[in-house]
């Protein structure tokens, strides 16, 4: 891709514990281009957040990057010293967390939280930062922004707070935004608004977005491409429409089946039997094999092929013809 913003190459994250080394992210690779929204989807515990935190350099000890490379705008960032990485955070890459109710400091006015972020990264005066703070709030759709800059977080509703959080993440104009389940904690009625806002802002500014979610509906709504994760590994990667219409990995297929998708016109939800294995208890071969309806003997022995050639990391991917209804 020509204007690649983020490039993750064979990323491995390890958590050493007393008994074993857990591997919540195992050999994951993907790119995100400017203005592109990549959805990262998978069950809870699949390693989506770990991958996002690894990119922005906020892994909690003892978790750490133990392999692979992360490139941002052509510069390698996974091996940067702490202080250099801090300067990139907020300025070149921003992050939006799941819960807007706890993401904002309750004792600081939102205007102050905006200006301090800008003054940290941009070479502008305080009065200029204050002006931009109002503009940033207007841009994310906070009514009466000029007055609301002086409000405290608890004076906003959940949806409005997530707008403030997005304004904060974008205020120094980063080229990459990692949004970790940005709507999961919100009322269903405002979820779509927040996703639409994120999408609009990123399209306007050409920001690359890593949109982490466990909701296939959000993926279908907002994303250009989707990466499906299972037990720390990438199961499938491809353009959203193709993946939704012709999932090739049986796990993706199952994930579709358990999501009510209007476009597919399904009446009943299929459930994937069983649950995702815990880290350190992964079966040999493909991690999905115990739950897979198509698993063969080889799946229990050989690791799935790497993602480089095909779209799905599966020995026996679903054929495209088979998915077409007779």
């Amino acid at each position: 891709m020509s204007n690649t913003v983020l490039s993750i190459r064979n990323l491995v994250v390890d958590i050493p514990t007393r008994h074993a080394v857990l591997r919540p992210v195992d050999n994951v690779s993907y790119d995100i281009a400017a203005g592109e929204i990549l959805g990262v989807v998978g069950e809870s515990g699949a390693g989506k957040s770990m991958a996002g935190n690894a990119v922005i350099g906020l892994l909690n000890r003892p978790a750490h990057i133990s392999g692979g490379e992360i490139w941002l705008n052509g510069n390698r960032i996974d091996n940067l010293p702490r202080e250099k990485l801090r300067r990139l955070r907020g300025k070149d890459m921003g992050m939006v967390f799941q819960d807007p109710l706890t993401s904002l400091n309750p004792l600081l006015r939102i205007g102050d939280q905006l200006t301090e972020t800008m003054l940290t990264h941009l070479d502008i005066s305080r009065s200029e930062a204050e002006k931009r703070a109002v503009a940033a709030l207007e841009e994310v759709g906070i009514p009466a922004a000029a007055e609301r800059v002086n409000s405290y977080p608890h004076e906003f509703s959940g949806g409005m707070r997530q707008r403030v959080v997005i304004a904060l993440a974008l205020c120094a104009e980063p080229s990459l935004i990692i949004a970790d389940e940005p709507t999961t904690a919100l009322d269903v009625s405002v979820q779509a608004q927040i996703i639409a806002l994120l999408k609009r802002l990123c399209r306007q500014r050409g920001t690359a977005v890593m949109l982490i979610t466990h909701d296939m509906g959000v993926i279908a709504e907002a994303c250009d491409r989707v990466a499906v994760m299972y037990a720390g590994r990438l199961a499938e990667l491809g353009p959203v429409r193709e993946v939704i219409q012709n999932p090739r990995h049986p796990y993706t297929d199952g994930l579709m089946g358990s999501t009510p998708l209007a476009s597919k016109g399904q009446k009943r939800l299929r459930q994937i039997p069983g649950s995702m294995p815990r880290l350190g208890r992964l079966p040999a071969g493909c991690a999905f094999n115990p739950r897979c309806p198509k698993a063969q003997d080889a799946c229990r022995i050989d690791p799935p092929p790497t993602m480089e050639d095909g779209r799905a990391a599966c020995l026996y991917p679903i054929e495209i013809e088979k998915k077409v209804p007779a």
Partner: protein
Amino acid sequence: MGNAALDPGALSVKNHAMLAYIIKRIVQSVIVLLVVGLVAFAMFRFVGDPIDNILGQERTQADIERLRVELGLDQPFVVQYWNFLARAAQGDLGVSYRQSRPVVEILLERAPATLELAAVSGAMAIIFGIMLGIFTAIRRDGFAANTIMTISLIGVSLPTFLIGVLLIYFFSVGMQFTLFGQTISTDLGLPSFGRGETVKIGGWSTGFLTESGLKALILPAITLGLYQMTLIMRLVRSEMLEVLRQDYIRFARARGLRERAVNFRHALKNTLVPVITITGLQLGSIIAFAIITETVFQWPGVGLLFINSIQTVDIPVMAAYLMLISVMFVAINLVVDLLYFAIDPRLRVDRTARGH
């Protein structure tokens, strides 16, 4: 979750709950004071014979009868108790057996010594406690922080009188040892006895204005403040560690704020909300703890007065001290409780655990 505060219905329920809570706390406080008053009165009335105490050996039956009526000892117990409380409320705490002066007068004379000592140790405990708490929280796994935490554990478990005696031994008496061929003495010439010179301003005698007065404060203030300091330090540390785990700290880091801004602008502010209230409570106990320190350093405050009154069985002084301390404790408790309740709904951070 957090939207409950915006619901007007929830707000009025909260107000009712708060009113009920305040009333309950005030009733509890009054009961505590009545019980303490009863104990104090019982000491007055039944520990030794007040008439013996006042009249001594040379007395006639007429004297005894006259005093009995004068003191109201002929009246029913409840009436006597009520009169005792009424007099105490008006500031009449009786007359010291030993000094034959009103107890209130003696207490007022002794109060500045105790209050100055408590103020200095309190300030020391707060300033150093908060600084060390922040340090040990930020450098959680560092060698220095771990060392401080270990020492603080010793500090908490050492009895106050032992700390006082050790300080006197090192810095007042002085210990000598040889290091690299040089004899080093730890003697800093700090007084271990009394207040030094004091200056009277109005009715208040202060040790802050003379060199010997200030020097005399050092060792007792450390002795008295050390325990509170370690307590505040540990409190600040654990609160700060808790705050540093919060989402908004993570988000502040994700925005690339400098470590200093994260620690002091974002974390410290939130740490101090609960710390202030609990610290207020701790400071009240400094005055109570002063008994031991004042004894070790022969510091002429109300604590030493109390110890002396025990030795001389000066019941009115003992009873007055007991009531004074309990009134102070109950008052501080009440204020801090109400403060906490008032601060809680608006400022308390929602500490529900974060999702995956």
